[in-house]
């Protein structure tokens, strides 16, 4: 039977991953977007104390298998975090549930290595030269989707018509998903970016700037965070999300030549958290420290409930908050979290930032 590969739905990453696999001539299966059902399956198939991104991912894997995937790419491996072990456990659980799929782990701490390794597995020893073009296509795709999302995160705060930015973003991403190769991408890039750029904004509307730091899975999954980014945008908040795929998957060499934000973040965060404690904790603290240098009015720390690395980061953020006087709101999410508590906290936080803003004027 021919290979049908599935990648879990994780924001624009899955969009790019799918186009990439297709460019390699690999058949793909798109699992349905995260839903109540996905989470229910995930909760059923996971130990109670595991974090919510782990649970949701398991639900995605099961739904991918139901859609007829033969191979599933699993995300895992950020150091000492539980997600590092969960891919192995989840592969086993899938077999226990009688789902015969091959599983492949993409270690988020070794993205370059694993991207290449998995590509080699799926292309069955095709020459490396043939892979260069698709890989460049993947990187360009990610850079385009990052640019689109970054624009939307800022533009939402000033949109004149509620929902206009999200409609434009959806239309743009649909165009991106239809791109087949790097040539098409090059030809249509400006036009696609223009879709979001064309949304009518109100330049006079006073806005706040808030940095979003914390666990990337929770930040990138609106289903888990109760649509945090859109809610903030509509409250008149420009959102600066720390996580961008380009920063992670970019080829190392050009990274050295550019302003290396990752490195600067590490240096800025060293004062508050000296070693890697797994997950995204180190990036959380580093990015928070960078953003606190006047980039934002406040920080929102997003963590899955019970996440050990982010708990450590939270303690480090207390020191940062004290030293730099930057307001920090901690939000933790699990399958029990309802939207009411999130909304109340966000509203109160925004009220608080405005009060400080007016005081500062």
């Amino acid at each position: 039977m021919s290979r049908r590969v599935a990648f879990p739905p994780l924001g624009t990453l899955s969009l790019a991953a799918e186009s990439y696999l297709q460019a390699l001539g690999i058949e793909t299966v798109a699992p349905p977007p995260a839903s109540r059902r996905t989470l229910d399956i995930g909760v059923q198939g996971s130990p109670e104390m595991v974090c919510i991104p782990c649970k949701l991912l398991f639900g995605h894997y099961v739904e991918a298998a139901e859609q007829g995937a033969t191979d599933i790419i699993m995300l895992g491996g950020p150091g000492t975090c539980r997600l590092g072990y969960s891919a192995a456990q989840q592969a086993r659980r899938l077999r226990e549930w009688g789902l015969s799929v091959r599983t492949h782990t993409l270690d988020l701490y070794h993205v370059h290595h694993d991207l290449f390794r998995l590509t080699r597995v799926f292309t069955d020893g095709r020459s490396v030269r043939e892979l260069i073009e698709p890989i460049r296509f993947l990187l360009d795709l990610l850079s385009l989707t990052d640019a689109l999302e970054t624009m939307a995160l800022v533009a939402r705060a000033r949109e004149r018509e509620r929902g206009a930015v999200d409609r434009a973003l959806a239309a743009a991403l649909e165009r991106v998903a239809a791109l087949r190769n790097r040539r098409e991408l090059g030809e249509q890039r400006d036009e696609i970016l223009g879709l979001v750029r064309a949304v009518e904004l109100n330049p006079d509307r006073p806005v706040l700037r808030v940095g979003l730091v914390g666990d990337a899975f929770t930040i990138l999954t609106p289903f888990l965070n109760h649509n945090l980014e859109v809610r903030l945008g509509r409250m008149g908040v420009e959102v600066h999300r720390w996580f961008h795929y380009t920063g992670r998957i970019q080829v190392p060499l050009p990274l050295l030549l550019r302003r290396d934000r990752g490195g600067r973040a590490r240096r800025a965060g060293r004062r508050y958290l000296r070693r890697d404690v797994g997950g995204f904790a180190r990036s959380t603290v580093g990015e928070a420290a960078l953003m606190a240098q006047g980039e934002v009015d406040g920080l929102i720390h997003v963590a899955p409930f019970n996440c050990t690395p982010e708990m450590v980061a939270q303690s480090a953020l207390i020191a940062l908050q004290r030293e730099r006087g930057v307001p920090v709101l901690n939000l933790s999410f699990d399958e029990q979290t309802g939207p009411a508590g999130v909304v109340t906290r966000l509203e109160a936080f925004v009220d608080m930032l405005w009060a400080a803003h007016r005081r500062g004027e």
Partner: protein
Amino acid sequence: MSEVFLGMDVGSVTTKLAAVDRRGELVASLYRRTGGQPIQAIREGLAQMAERLPAGVRVLGMGATGSGRQLAGAIVGADVVKNEITAHAVAALHFVPEVRTVIDIGGQDSKLILLRDGIVVDFAMNSVCAAGTGSFLEQQAHRLGITVEELGQRALLSEHPVRIAGRCTVFAESDMVHKQQMGHPMDDIIYGLCQALVRNYLNNLALGKTLEPPVVFQGGVAANAGVVRAFREALGTEVIVLPHHEVMGALGAALLARERSDGQPSRFKGFGVVQAEVQANSFECHACPNLCEIAQIRMDGQIVARWGGRCDRWEVV
């Protein structure tokens, strides 16, 4: 003719109303149970409030807060719908302008608000556990066969409080039963419980925060002298309990409506809304696999509010 700004705080356990005049002085207030029937509580509360206000009173503005603020806003017509943190901070500042710490413990949630120079600089709310809130104290009072008011008074008599495990209500209860069986005096167990509640509050909400005086303690639980004593001892500072501590949220909402007022007519629908027929129903949306529960509120047959969806589909009425 008298003129007032109204505030309504619809909480999970109790519903509070407050009316202030143009100068921000409290004119009348009301504290009643929500009783799991928020719509009923809003209508009856408003009717009771009308009786406490002079006949022919003019409502210049209306503010709603509490977990049921959207519902209250939709039914009675609010000019301001604000979160509880802001409402409580505004109310505390109104009475104690130099306040630096606000502790609020209600029926099912607790808040901590830190202020500096009259503005909120940090806050926290309990997230996953209700072990430190009013409902639990009430349960325990009931189990011991005394009223909540008595619970506070008995706690003051304690000389050697017993340490009660306060992390979780279930464990606290078994620990209390155990201590009773060991023969500890009831007063000491009760005060031990108050201390456990305070410990739990400080561990959960005050993590890494400095609670500086003046400290204002508000919300229903502030009526409990035992908990006030436990806070005073734990913080090593005076704890201010204001006369209207239980309606501070509503008061804050009224003050926010007053602040907002710019001579424009209020959206308040009038005390007549208590006669309106209010119906709530819900349905499951099948547009995507999320199957959101959408709730809608009808007044005299007209849909006034709809919520519960993860997307915008049903939001706009």
